[in-house]
Each structure stands twice: as structure tokens, then as C-alpha cells.
């Protein structure tokens, strides 16, 4: 006869309310683990999907995911000449916030090395990859921008030709994919007035020096297009992604590139490690502390409820001792109740989470291994929580039943 189940049936209301409370706490514990997993998933999504073997970034920096990295766009051509390199792509990525239909719209602008890369590697849920050098974009569906939408970014309009799902940046903002030149145009867009002021400033600087006064043609150049001035820096990108030829010796290519003093080379795994150690580590510790606190709180709540349930039936326990019940029967009753309470709470947490987590603004990713770990934790805390009640029950004298 299972005494635990019969007692729970008798105190169904109290047991149900407590289990709901425990369940909600465990759901938060579960959710926090899922948020951490989501952070990692979102942070490494692009690095994983883009499929580069090596990342070339500004010398002595940790790359675009850790800090500002600026390298000349034509570095791509230099790298392509290295033996073993099959393909190079420019990496341009920046976050912008614009107004769209009266609401703020944050997105990560990602450049694709057109024409080699039109985004064919992306898993599209609708539409197609890029087919033009300009004015087309692919957007993640989390941005709520339907296929065919035209949005103005800078001076130009871009039409959404493809939709991805679950492609978000490290901050949780949806990714958008443009050709590199469009991405850079959006990044370096300046208002007309700013350009006019800059040209006027350039003219003033040229007029202030002897060369300018002696060569009036320079004054005309100074107020012309920025791209027409050879003395100005060429366009810059954040990184260059390298794909190696099949069978190429990674170490050899890397050794060659590492000899170039203006750059630093990382493997994809190193980029991920830098990304995680830099961005996710503190969030991981923060979430971990919250999880630990919530687990402790859950343990205390289960312990107190089990203890009060034990106090409620202290005479019944004394009676069981009087009629000769072994300690294992009495301890088992209390332990089973704690485990059942924890199990119901866990089941409820999982069930509510199925509906609640998808509605969270950031990805909550529950891995089966996390569910197993939490189940083990629930068993452990339920067992620990029962100890107080078991201790109380073990100290009850059988003659307590006579002291009515």
C-alpha cells in the first residue's frame, strides 16, 4: 500500500498548490538555462553557418565579435593569392536602428561577398537568395518584414527577396543580408549636408597649405567625390573569411598568413571561443547564480511543505511506529511525497515552458541534456528537502499517540 499517494490524495488541494508553486519556480530555472543556451546559439549561429575555415582580422585585435576590427577591403585579393586558399569573402557586420511604420526597427546588417556569395548557404523559409548587386536584401522573419517589403536605409530603398528563420545576432536582433557594397553604403551613409560640410572643410585645409595655393586643380579635387581622392583611405571591412581548398594544409596556410604583420588569423573555433568568453561568459555566470538561488529557494519551499505535512501527521507516524512499522516505511512515505512534489513541479514546469518559452523575446533553447540535468537536480533537492521531515519523524516516540 502506498501511503504517500494516499496522503497526497487526502491533501490534494495543498499538494496541487504547492506543486504549482514549485513548478513555476522550476520553470524559471529551466528557462534561465534555456536563455543561456539561446545566447550561445544566437552568438555562434553566424560563425557556424557562414562556413569559413579561417578569419583574418585587424592585427593584434580579437576580431569583429570582440572589438572593432578594420582591415582594407582589398586584403581579400592578397589572401586569395596564398596557396591553399579556395575562396575569400569580406565580412561586414553592424547593427542599425531605424524607424519602420512608426516603430523602432533594429537589425544586424550583414554583407555578402557578391557575386561569389549571394546567400545561397542560408536556409530560406521564403523567397530566394540575392540575384542583384544592389537594392536587394534577405531578412530574418523575427523582424516582421514580409517578403516584397521595400524599406529605406540611407539614401536607397531595399526590397526583401528572401526570409530566414532563427537567424539573429549576438544581441538577439534579426540578421539582414545585403551585398557587401550595399552593407557598406548603409554603414557609411552620410546626409548631404554632412558631405557638403566635409568638402568645404577639405577645401579650407587645402587652401591653407602652399600646395593648394600653387596647384588650384587640387582645390577642385578636394570638393569632388571622396572616392576620387587617392590620398584618402580605401574602404574598410571588419574581417576577411577564408575557405580552404579540399585537402589544403590549414597549418601551412595559417603560418603564411601569420607572417603578415598587419593582420591576425583565427580559426572558426577560436573565433567562437573569443565570442563566448567575451560576450556570453558574464551572462552565463549571472544566469548560473540566479539558477542556483532559485534551486535553493525551491529546496527550502519543498522542505518546509514536507515538514508541515509531516507535522500534520505526526500522530499517524507515531501510530505506525506503535504498530511496528519499520523506519523505511515511514521514511519512504516522506521521501516519496517530496519526490512526487518535485516530479509534479518538474512536469508542470516543462508543460508550461512549452507554451511560455516561445513567447519570450529572446530564444529559449531547452536541450534534452539540460532537461535530464534538471530532472537529476530535482531528485536531489527533493531528497534533501525530505530530510528535515524524515528527521522529525524518526524522533517521534510511539507513545505520542497516547498523548491526546
Amino acid at each position, binding site marked *: *500500500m502506498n*501511503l504517500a499517494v*494516499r496522503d497526497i490524495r487526502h491533501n490534494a488541494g495543498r499538494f496541487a498548490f504547492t506543486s504549482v508553486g514549485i513548478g513555476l519556480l522550476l520553470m524559471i530555472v529551466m528557462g534561465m538555462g534555456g536563455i543561456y543556451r539561446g545566447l550561445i546559439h544566437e552568438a555562434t549561429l553566424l560563425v557556424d553557418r557562414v562556413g569559413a575555415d579561417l578569419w583574418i582580422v585587424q592585427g593584434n585585435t580579437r576580431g569583429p565579435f570582440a572589438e572593432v576590427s578594420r582591415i582594407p577591403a582589398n586584403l581579400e585579393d592578397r589572401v586569395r593569392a596564398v596557396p591553399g586558399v579556395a575562396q575569400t569573402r569580406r565580412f561586414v557586420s553592424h547593427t542599425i536602428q531605424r524607424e519602420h511604420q512608426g516603430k523602432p526597427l533594429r537589425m544586424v546588417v550583414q554583407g555578402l561577398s557578391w557575386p561569389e556569395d549571394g546567400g545561397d548557404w542560408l536556409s530560406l523559409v521564403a523567397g530566394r537568395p540575392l540575384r542583384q548587386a544592389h537594392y536587394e536584401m534577405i531578412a530574418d522573419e523575427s523582424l516582421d518584414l514580409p517578403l516584397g517589403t521595400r524599406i529605406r536605409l540611407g539614401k536607397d530603398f531595399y526590397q526583401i527577396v528572401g526570409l530566414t528563420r532563427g537567424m539573429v545576432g549576438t544581441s538577439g536582433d534579426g540578421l539582414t543580408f545585403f551585398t557587401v557594397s550595399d552593407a557598406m553604403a548603409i554603414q557609411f551613409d552620410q546626409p548631404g549636408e554632412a558631405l557638403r560640410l566635409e568638402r568645404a572643410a577639405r577645401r579650407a585645409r587645402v587652401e591653407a597649405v602652399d600646395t593648394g595655393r600653387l596647384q588650384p586643380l587640387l582645390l577642385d579635387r578636394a570638393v569632388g567625390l571622396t572616392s576620387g581622392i587617392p590620398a584618402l583611405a580605401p574602404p574598410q571591412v571588419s574581417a576577411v573569411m577564408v575557405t580552404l581548398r579540399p585537402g589544403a594544409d590549414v597549418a601551412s596556410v595559417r603560418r603564411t598568413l601569420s607572417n603578415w604583420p598587419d593582420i591576425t588569423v583565427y580559426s572558426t573555433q577560436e573565433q567562437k571561443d573569443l565570442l563566448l568568453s567575451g560576450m556570453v561568459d558574464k551572462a552565463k555566470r549571472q544566469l548560473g547564480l540566479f539558477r542556483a538561488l532559485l534551486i535553493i529557494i525551491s529546496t527550502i519551499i519543498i522542505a518546509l511543505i514536507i515538514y508541515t505535512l509531516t507535522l500534520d501527521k505526526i500522530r499517524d507516524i507515531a501510530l505506525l511506529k506503535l504498530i511496528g512499522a519499520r523506519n523505511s516505511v515511514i521514511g519512504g512515505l516522506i521521501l516519496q511525497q517530496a519526490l512526487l512534489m518535485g516530479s509534479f513541479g518538474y512536469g508542470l514546469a516543462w508543460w508550461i515552458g512549452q507554451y511560455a518559452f516561445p513567447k519570450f523575446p529572446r530564444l529559449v533553447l531547452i536541450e534534452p541534456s539540460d532537461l535530464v540535468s534538471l530532472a537529476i537536480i530535482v531528485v536531489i533537492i527533493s531528497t534533501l528537502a525530505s530530510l528535515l521531515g524524515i528527521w522529525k519523524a524518526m524522533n517521534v516516540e510511539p507513545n505520542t499517540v497516547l498523548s491526546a
Partner: protein
Amino acid sequence: MNPPPAVEVTHLRKVYGSGHTEIVAMRDASLSIAPGEIVGMFGPSGSGKSTLLTAMALINPPTSGQIHIGGKPVMDGPRALVDLRAFRRQHLGFVFQKANLIPFLTALENVQIALEVNDVAPKPACTRAMELLEYLGVGARSNNLPVALSGGEQQRVAVARALANNPSLILADEPTAALDGPLGRQVMELFAKIAHEKNAGVIVVTHDHRTLDVFDRILDVEDGMIQVRSSSHG
């Protein structure tokens, strides 16, 4: 050869506290109850009868003296000579002033649990529990929780629980105190029937003098001493 007594108490002494707070609850009690004998134990409050009963119930060890149950030595002073809890579940039955039924178990389960803690498998335990409830006239209420039973029905279920493991000794502490006169007498007659039919020694602590005739023997406990009053039948 005569069977051993259901219980035999020799020179039992029980002292609570020590020094200034010392209280002698039982001075030098000796008694012997035969199998099939029902004994009434009378005495004013504080006379020591509950002390004697709980000592025989193996839940209140004496300061000195010996207790034998079914011929087996079980207590030598405060020292237990057997596993007391195991001995209680195998050889003793208890009935109290209150039925003390477990509130979350049905009448049947309250009896069944006494069998299951004595390692009887659930199915035969259920069958035996049902037989006992029917023997005591509450078979029809077997699936009711205690809260749905009357005082008399609860006490019958408690008696069934006490009988579950065929105890050689049944100890009852004012079992009719919470019952009205006719019902109290009915329960006392039930004890007498059990003592005679099941051949168990039955000791009943009571204040109810209207049921003197059901006892084979009456003991008066006063000031920690036992006096044999008479045989109620003779």
C-alpha cells in the same frame, strides 16, 4: 504442560525524573495474564495504570523489573532483550480511548496497513482485513474514510487493526471512554469474545464500572501498586 502466560510482569518499578523531581509511578508491580483471559485494570488518575500498560506495550521502558510476553523475556529493566518494534508488530495489539485511525486511509486500509507492516502481501492482507471488519460488523463500511464513520464504528475498526496479526496480547487504554453506555458495553463484550475465541490475553484499562462483569479478573492499581480485587465471575 500449561501454555506460557500471555504476559508476565515481575517486580516492575518505574521512576520518572530524578532528585527533587523524582516521581515513582510504579513501585513494585507483578502480574501474570493467561492466554484467553480478559483483565480489567481500574484505578484513579495518576495511579500508575497507564504507566504499567505502556510498559507492557514496550513503549515505556521500566526502571527495573522484567517483562515476559508469551513466555519470552522482552525487557530486563530499561534494557530491551528483543527488537521492540518487530516484537510489537508480531505479538501485540493496541486499542486506545480514541480510535486513532489514520485519516487518509479507508477503514479497510487502516486494518490492512497493520498486516502489511508485518510483511503480509497486499492481496492476502486485504482479504484478512476484510474478514476482520466483517467479524466486527463493519464490513459494509470498509471503503469509508474514518471521518465518515461513527465513534463506535471507528473503535471497531481500531479493534480489527489490533487483531490483524493474531496478537498474543491486546492492550486497551480506556477504549470505551468516548462511547456511550450501550456502545461501550458492546465493545467490552467484543473484547471478551476476542479473548475467549482468539485465545489472546486482553488487558483493559477502564473507569467504567458498569462493565465489570465482562472481565475474568479485576486489578486495582493505586499509588503504583497492584491489588487483585476479585474474579468478576466469582
